[in-house]
């Protein structure tokens, strides 16, 4: 874990400021009283007693200096924790630091949450914003607790708390949505989906839905909420807010099923508890549903995929119907779940009145967030890396990998650290039965490798094709050995295993540090 910890440390260098020297700590150090007073009148930040304002600003400046010093020290000493610790220190000194700094973003904030696809969706939104001429302040490293969000804006702010950007773009962890909304007063809130994920951390999905409902109730009518029409619990949130609601979804039914996957989570009506009837289910419980008892049903999406074409691991082509007419986009990320990420990002563009052309460019030129999906050349072989972290996501990755119907060589890495979720019973909800007769070899490693092996045995995957390797380095070598010349090893890691395998490949010189992407 040493390696991944040190790469975690550099992660907070967001691409907004790839090589900003830290000497500015000295350069900006202000004669506090005068500068703050000047700044106050300049930005028109507001009345109240000048004395109270000054105390408040002095506190913020002190908090920022402390946070930046911590960031500087942890980055240069490779201590790790650079994506959250500075924010933690800043908040300790000024608990309102995030609120004060985000208040100075000209275009306000965009908050993205959901179980799957937060990082990808947020990065795609960032790309759209850039094509529209905005300068987003973004927690790009994916540190998405309140301390990570604070660290991100801290990192891109002057010592006086003026962000070097005009719009805040933050992905936030499911449970942190209420706090983040209370502190950032966002203009747009995007919710992609709600699946079972790390129940040991969050409790049950109804509990998370309840948190979100309460948080959205606090939004003013001037805000906009972007919701997935095809996810029943998420769509139902539209009724609990005074904010404008924009729904996105998929109309094209060709990739749907008539029956729900085993991993579907919210199958019962949010109103009356009866089982939804699905015209078509796209993945998990996401699809076109209606309640046969009380009539609760999927809202009609304002922006949707009218036609879509998935092409195995290379990406998808979408014909979107938008409030401003049709729009053709190409996404370089594979799978139906990335179609939803794209729809969420495009809908956010419309929520912000961004011109269609910028939305198209933002989507078309987008490449994957590190590690979620990544292709790495190792000698004459390829490694295809796809993050797996919960049943629905894992099913989608498997479905996407085997769209071409060809047998594959796999390396599966299952950890049960806190960031992965310590309860790995979710492996039994993944449809590994789909692998029967389709794998040439599977190497398994990670802290829960043995559980994974049992799962595959009971999925009737040929046990002779399964090997366990405790050591990650050896596991990767074994996987590569199984692959023929010019072939591809498909690596499926949980979150912390992804950090480890990436650190390993980085050490071997095959991938860059992730802040460079």
């Amino acid at each position: 874990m040493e390696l991944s910890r040190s790469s975690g440390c550099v992660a907070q260098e967001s691409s907004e400021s790839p090589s900003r020297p830290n000497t500015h700590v000295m350069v900006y150090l202000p004669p506090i009283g005068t500068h703050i007073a000047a700044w106050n009148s300049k930005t028109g930040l507001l009345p109240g007693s000048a004395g109270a304002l000054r105390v408040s600003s002095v506190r913020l400046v002190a908090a920022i200096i402390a946070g930046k010093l911590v960031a500087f020290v942890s980055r240069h000493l490779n201590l790790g924790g650079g994506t959250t610790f500075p924010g933690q220190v800043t908040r300790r000194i000024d608990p309102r630091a995030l609120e004060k700094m985000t208040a100075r973003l000209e275009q306000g904030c965009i908050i993205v949450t959901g179980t799957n696809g937060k990082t990808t969706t947020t990065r795609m939104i960032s790309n759209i914003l850039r094509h529209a001429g905005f300068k987003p302040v973004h927690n790009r490293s994916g540190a998405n607790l309140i301390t990570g969000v604070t660290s991100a804006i801290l990192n891109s702010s002057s010592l006086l708390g003026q962000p070097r950007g005009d719009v805040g773009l933050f992905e936030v962890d499911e449970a942190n949505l209420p706090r983040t909304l209370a502190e950032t007063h966002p203009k747009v809130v995007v919710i992609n989906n709600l699946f079972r994920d790390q129940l040991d951390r969050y409790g049950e999905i109804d509990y998370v839905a309840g948190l979100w409902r309460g948080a959205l109730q606090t939004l003013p009518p001037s805000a906009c909420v972007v919701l997935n029409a095809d996810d029943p619990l998420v769509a139902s949130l539209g009724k609990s807010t005074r904010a404008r609601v924009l729904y996105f979804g998929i109309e094209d039914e060709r990739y749907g099923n008539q029956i729900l996957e085993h991993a579907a989570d919210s199958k019962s009506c949010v109103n009356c508890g009866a089982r939804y009837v699905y015209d078509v289910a796209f993945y998990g419980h996401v699809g076109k549903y209606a309640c046969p008892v009380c009539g609760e049903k999927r809202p009609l999406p304002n922006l949707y995929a009218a036609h879509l074409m998935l092409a195995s691991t290379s990406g998808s082509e979408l014909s979107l119907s938008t409030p401003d007419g049709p729009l053709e986009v190409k996404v370089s990320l594979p799978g139906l779940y990335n179609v939803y990420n794209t729809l969420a990002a495009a809908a956010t563009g419309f929520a912000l009145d961004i011109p269609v052309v910028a939305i198209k460019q933002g989507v078309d030129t987008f490449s994957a967030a590190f590690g979620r999906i990544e292709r790495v050349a190792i000698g004459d072989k390829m490694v295809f890396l796809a993050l797996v972290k919960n049943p629905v996501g894992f099913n989608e990755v498997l479905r996407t990998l085997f769209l071409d119907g060809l047998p594959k060589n796999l390396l599966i890495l299952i950890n049960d650290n806190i960031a992965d979720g310590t309860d790995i019973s979710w492996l039994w909800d993944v449809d590994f039965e789909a692998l029967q007769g389709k794998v040439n070899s599977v190497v398994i490693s990670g802290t829960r490798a043995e559980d994974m092996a049992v799962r595959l045995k009971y999925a009737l995957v040929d046990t002779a094709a399964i090997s366990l390797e405790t050591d990650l380095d050896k596991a990767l070598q074994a996987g590569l050995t199984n692959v023929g010349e010019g072939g591809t090893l498909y690596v499926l890691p949980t979150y912390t295993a992804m950090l480890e395998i990436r650190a390993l490949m980085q050490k071997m010189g095959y991938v860059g540090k992730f802040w460079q992407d």
Partner: protein
Amino acid sequence: MKLRICHLYPDLMNIYGDRGNIIALSRRAQWAGIEVEVVNVPLGASLDASACDIIFIGGGQDKEQALIAKDLQEVKGKAIIEAVQEGAALLAVCGGYQLLGKYFKTGADAVLPGIGLFDAWTVAGSKRCIGDVLVECDFTGERHTLVGFENHSGKTYLGESLKPLGKVLHGFGNNAEDGREGAIYKNAFGTYLHGSILPKNPWFTDHLIRVALQRRYGDQASLARVDTSFEDRAHQAVIARIRNRGKLDTGAI
């Protein structure tokens, strides 16, 4: 030989990979040459006590648990008790285990009624019991261990005459107080362990299959030995990780 496994509320009570238990029972029985039929018994459907060889009920969320409690009272409770009295095997995990007791007091004034199969009761606790569990059992006449993962806040207490499934060597168990985990009444077993419990404890899976066979086909019905190599490795891995964390006395196992 053929066994019928009745999976109660498969779509509502499935929160912690409970399907793994059905998969483990089916596969191991099939590998031993036994034909298996899995019958899903959803909300509202009745249960034919004499047709069940093995009954399984998993865990669910609060919302689902209230629906299930009502259905157990009105539709299935009697048949479940009848089947167990006749010797059917039953496994109830977490939320299912709680509702087969006498009641589950979920809050100050809220009580979910149980069907009283187990002389046990559950009260909501303030602390969530989460983590790996290691349990020692001797109900087969031999000493065995069970490994699993628990995640519950309800605390379950057993009546005087009800036997626990085993003694907690690591983890919280029924209530984090008395060192006991689960409950046994005839061939019915209640437990907080998931993970899923059966795949990593093949001796327990085989025990459930064996008692179900003997009830259906007589005491001489035997179960062919089936490989347990991957399963044993996973079982030992859990014990090793608990030991490596220094949370197990070296003398315990």
